[in-house]
């Protein structure tokens, strides 16, 4: 480490101009280094150059005194509609699902991604730095390919086709039987493996969809299936094993009942920790301590928020999971490192590690508390603006005063 820093200092033209040294009271690396107190994080060229206690600050680095701050990796939201849905109830702002066209797994959200959404700034200033954008099942139980984005001001799309998304949560696609959905998945996957299917019948997989399923099996990208009923979770695990797919369970309201199965198969789950209601007959076993039980059984858990415009809720969800018995460190990991590891994102996303992306949040205190907030947010080594449409509206109306120009000029 010291040798590397020394080397950097010998190359001033490359290194010293943009270097940032953050002196933090507490750093949660969510990696092997664990929790560090009075530590320094060196950031250069968008990556974490070093993190540790007592690190010397190379000359030319901008020093940020954050002695009172708690630093974590940026939050990673594992299941969102960022850039493909601006306003849920305005159909013209949505590109998240195909409903009037026979297309399933071949859909790729990158083809519709909007880089100017107002949702980025709102969630960024509350600490969300990366997100998985997933399509919603429309005509087919398999919805298509999702992407990885960063919630920066530009160049948000970080990687495409990071996972295939689908659902077993309802039988609406089959018109009456979850068994038919399983059969369709098996048939589609088998045909894709054989690459013999060339049908254009909309009830079977078209060429492009078959190609997508073939690519899924070849690439090793994960298949994320929303499924809640414990029996369906078991069957999904079996299906994934049969076709050698990397399965991720989304939703998983009754996952706690089959925690041993998930742990044995090392199938991670992405859950909305607030979903504790018996809101459907496929999730009568929903409970508040689902995450705590899964974690205790050795299942890898990530948290998602029900709403993309409030992807920022994941830290409140994590805090509630702690109140329900999940270890604090595991709950923080469930909104940082674990989503990244679940999808297999490279470059230390969701962690603070040497050589990893410099996505950092400086919090005023415990990042899982509802009484703290993000003071500063860094993405790829760049401090992000902390304003949004919401902060602009607040500034405009904070003082209701008849004096001066009308509000439209403020």
């Amino acid at each position, binding site marked *: 480490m010291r040798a590397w820093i020394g080397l950097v200092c010998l190359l001033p033209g490359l290194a010293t101009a943009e270097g940032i040294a953050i002196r933090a009271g507490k750093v949660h690396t969510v990696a092997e280094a664990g929790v560090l107190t009075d530590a320094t994080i060196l950031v250069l060229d968008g990556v974490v150059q070093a993190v540790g206690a007592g690190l010397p600050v190379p000359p030319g680095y901008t020093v940020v005194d954050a002695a009172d701050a708690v630093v974590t990796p940026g939050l990673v939201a594992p299941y969102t509609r960022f850039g493909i849905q601006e306003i849920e109830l305005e159909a013209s702002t949505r590109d998240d699902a195909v409903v009037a066209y026979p297309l399933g797994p071949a859909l790729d959200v990158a083809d519709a991604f909007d880089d100017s959404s107002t949702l980025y700034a709102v969630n960024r200033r509350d600490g969300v730095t990366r997100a998985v954008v997933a399509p919603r099942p429309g005509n087919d139980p398999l919805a298509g390919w999702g992407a990885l984005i960063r919630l920066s001001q530009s160049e948000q799309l970080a990687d495409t086709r990071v996972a295939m998304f689908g659902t077993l949560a309802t039988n609406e696609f089959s018109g009456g039987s979850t068994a038919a959905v399983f059969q369709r998945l098996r048939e589609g996957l088998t045909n894709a493996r054989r690459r013999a299917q060339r049908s254009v019948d909309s009830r079977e997989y078209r060429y492009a969809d078959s190609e997508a399923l073939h690519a899924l099996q070849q690439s090793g990208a994960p298949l994320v299936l929303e499924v809640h009923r414990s029996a369906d979770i078991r069957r999904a695990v079996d299906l994934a094993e049969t076709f050698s797919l990397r399965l991720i369970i989304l939703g998983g309201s009754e996952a706690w009942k089959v925690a041993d199965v998930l742990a044995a198969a090392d199938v991670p789950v992405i859950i909305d920790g607030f979903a504790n209601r018996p809101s459907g007959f496929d999730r009568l076993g929903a409970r508040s301590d689902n995450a705590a039980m899964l974690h205790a059984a050795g299942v890898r858990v990530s948290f998602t928020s029900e709403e993309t415009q*409030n992807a920022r809720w994941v830290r409140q969800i994590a805090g509630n999971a702690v109140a329900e018995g999940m270890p604090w460190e595991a709950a923080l990991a469930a909104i940082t490192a674990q989503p990244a590891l679940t999808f297999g994102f490279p470059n230390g996303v969701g962690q603070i590690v040497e050589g990893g992306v410099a996505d950092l949040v400086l919090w005023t205190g415990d990042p899982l508390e509802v009484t703290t907030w993000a003071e500063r947010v860094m993405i790829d080594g760049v401090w992000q603006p902390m304003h949004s449409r919401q902060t602009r509206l607040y500034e405009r109306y904070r003082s209701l005063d008849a004096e001066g120009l009308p509000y439209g000029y403020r």
Partner: protein
Amino acid sequence: MKHLLLLALLGISAASAAREPYDSTYEVRAASATLFRNVSVYTGDGRTLEPTDVLVSGGKIQRIGEQPVPADDIAVIEGEGRWLTPGIIDVHSHLGNYPSPAVPSTSDGNESVLPNTASVWAEHSVWPQDPQFALALAGGVTTLQILPGSANLFGGRGVTLKNVPARTVQGMKFPDAPQSLKMACGENPKRVYGQRILPPATRMGNVAGYRAAWAKAAEYRDKRAHADAEKRPERDIGLDTLASVLDGNILVHNHCYRADEMAVMIDVAKEFGYRITAFHHAVESYKVADLLAREGICSAMWADWWGFKLEAFDGVSQNVALVDQAGACAIVHSDSPIGIQRLNQEAAKALTAARRVGMDVSAGTAWQWISLNAARALGIAERTGSIEVGKAADVVLWNRDPLSVYAKADLVLIDGFTYFDREGRRPVSDFSLEHTAAGGGA
């Protein structure tokens, strides 16, 4: 209701009085006196008390302040590190009307067949076995208002319930709480009916619909009072509701997101001589907080919901605090079976957002947003919503400061009776038996 008051004045037990149809059958359960010793307190009216003692007995709050060692028949709960608050009051819920499981056969919250269904009463859709009531109780909710949905200009009458397990809705009704009328502005009515090529299809159509109904109601109300019974109009159940609003007996709770629409609704109310008690959802109240303060209208708001529809696009996290700061009545509501389980956290988030921009708001004020101000909007502030001597012992004991994400309710008392004990007594709905984890199913 009048009979009950009269009988009470005469010293006759209300229990023996003739019951009016639809009246509450809720009865306060006998409970031993309880002394909460050394508890920190959010009083619900804005104050925070350093660790002190609170004695409840006979279903009421009897004494606040250090107590001598009590007699043997008083249960003593050591509060070291724990907090006592008034029970949380949610002014906007659909529990029982949109229960879990959420399936077509349980969907009873929106009579979306006509834009004016002032005739329907939300209480007639409440399924007392909704498992969500128990989840809300675990979150410290002691009182909640169930409102009809917002598909219609006039959605119908709302009802205020005590969050107690009961076989009937009457057994949950908050005795003598005024009923409400749910009205809705904006996108929902015009979308629901516009799609069917029926009025209203626009916001101006919405307003025309309100005015036409109120004009008819005013005429009905006058004729109803005619001295000559022969000249009274044929009874109309929907107009009964609107006329009772004009008489001041039913409180108006108006779903309204946008500031400009609130101002229009205030003028509609002035034209026909009724008062708006609260705007619900009120995402843009911060833009007209001065007007709302002047008119004495409460705003029931979320801490941070925004953007799920265009009329919610201008949501800001300081909305609640800005309304409060302007001197208007600010309430944090849920409108959600998830949010109702943690309204304490929602109030904390609204408080935090204010502090983040340097606003000076106290923690005690944040609790007022989910207790006394909510009670005020429901017309029950004289009886509950704050920890004051003589008020109902609707209280929650928390294991720590309840404005923390980690806080859990240890005990929830309604009229002094412990309906929830984290280590013991918890209600389980009929539906949950064997089915769910709470009901002993695997």
